[in-house]
């Protein structure tokens, strides 16, 4: 039985389509109910919806054999999993953003508000820069506006949210996209099935 954790939302639905066309269909899933677990016993596959930031936990702990998680989550929490493929979906970037017209003072300790303290720390460490990290859980854009921080490190997609709050990107930290991950132990015992999924994703990518 191959257990797959899909991130709730449009990305998860697109990934399901790819897996379904690879032979792991589970029509029940498309019925639009509020069920969270779906099984196709004939195809020996079980899907469940999870909060996107939780997928990696399910996979690391073996509750799911395979899952799809954003590179931001993988870099921030570093779950002990295999990362088999880049889906090239959910593409965005991790950026440093600051209020328009911001000028950096290298002599001051930079106050950075972020949902991703580990990513921020690693990034500034590579620059040899000492920073004060303020971990927030949401609405990060407010922080520099009300003086809680100088800059923010956050995910940027279209940039609209930043623009509407008079912030702009001053540096790109790294590109982000959705990744296919799998449990290391599951890979040992279900390698063929897991590789089949990986190849299906990569074939889709080529189209």
């Amino acid at each position, binding site marked *: 039985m191959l257990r797959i954790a899909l991130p709730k939302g449009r990305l998860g639905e697109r990934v399901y389509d790819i897996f379904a066309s690879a032979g792991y269909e589970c029509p029940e899933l498309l019925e639009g109910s509020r069920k969270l677990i779906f099984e196709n016993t004939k195809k020996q596959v079980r899907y469940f919806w999870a909060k996107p930031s939780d997928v990696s936990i399910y996979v690391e*702990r073996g509750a799911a054999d395979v899952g799809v998680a954003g590179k931001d989550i993988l870099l921030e929490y570093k779950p002990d999993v295999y990362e088999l493929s880049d889906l090239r979906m959910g593409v965005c970037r991790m950026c440093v953003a600051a209020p328009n017209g911001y000028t950096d003072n290298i002599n001051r300790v930079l106050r950075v508000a972020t949902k991703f303290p580990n990513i921020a720390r690693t990034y500034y460490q590579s620059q040899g820069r000492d920073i004060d990290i303020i971990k927030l859980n949401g609405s990060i854009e407010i922080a520099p506006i009300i003086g809680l921080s100088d800059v923010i490190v956050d995910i940027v997609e279209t940039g609209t949210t930043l623009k509407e709050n008079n912030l702009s990107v001053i540096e790109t930290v790294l590109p982000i996209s959705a990744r296919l991950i799998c449990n*290391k132990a*599951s*890979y*040992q015992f279900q390698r063929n099935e897991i590789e089949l999924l990986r190849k299906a994703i990569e074939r889709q990518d080529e189209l």
Partner: protein
Amino acid sequence: MYIDESVITYEEKMILALRTLYSSEGYRSYKINKFEEYDLYVRNKDFLVSDGIITFTDTNGKLMALKPDVTLSIVNNNRYEKGKLQKLYYDEKVYRVTPSGNGYRELTQVGLETLGDIDESTESAVIRMAALSLKTIDDTYVLSISHTGLISALLEKMDLSDEQSARVMDYIREKAFHEIETIADCKESKYLPMLEKLIRLPEDTENALYTLKSMDAGETFSSIVYSLEAVLKPLHGLSVRLDCSVPANMRYYNGIVMNGYVKGIPQAILSGGRYDPLMKRIGKQGGAIGFAVYLDLLEGMR
């Protein structure tokens, strides 16, 4: 003397089964009857599985520790004898911080070590013991073997910066070939296809060795492949696979490294390898190879 089997717990049964296995193959039981100095662990901090050591002050004022690991003690107390092998097994209580970071816990670590003048047949014997240990726990198991030298030899050919090499090694560990392709100096490298082959070695050992032999990555690489072939040859019939994703802290491990899995447990329950560098760090002569089995991970399974 009558023993009612129903009073024996699953973990106790496993420990007894493993002890039976090891002693039947000529390994000697090693008991640690003293506390080690905290200093031993501090000096080799990243050999340990987790941070955090329980310490206490001895009656003579020395700072001692409740051991978080057994291998360090065995190495520390080892006496080298030329041409001889110390073949030991142990089952000891160790004290570590819980994975969630909340408090300490006591758990049983079972393991096997061979110290002294190690050769290919010694390596083969220890790997066999690791595979049989897994088999004792469950018929469906996989023992993954890697050799740090294979990856090092290939990276050396690629002329990468230290930072790039470190990244490539991380990606090999994650089986993330797609990430290696994004590293500037790797993308154009003629060795890129070889990295892909290393990451995607066939399950079957013979096919994997064939793939490795077909790679033109220099003399060092080839000699390691032939050595691996000799080591793995006597292990036919055991579920042993070549897998370069087995992680290794190069400060302590150099050569063969291994991870063992049993069906139903989501992480490796066995890990080990050749740790000559650790021997050297502690100022000991000779080589060493061994492994530990983490029985606490089997909890709740049966």
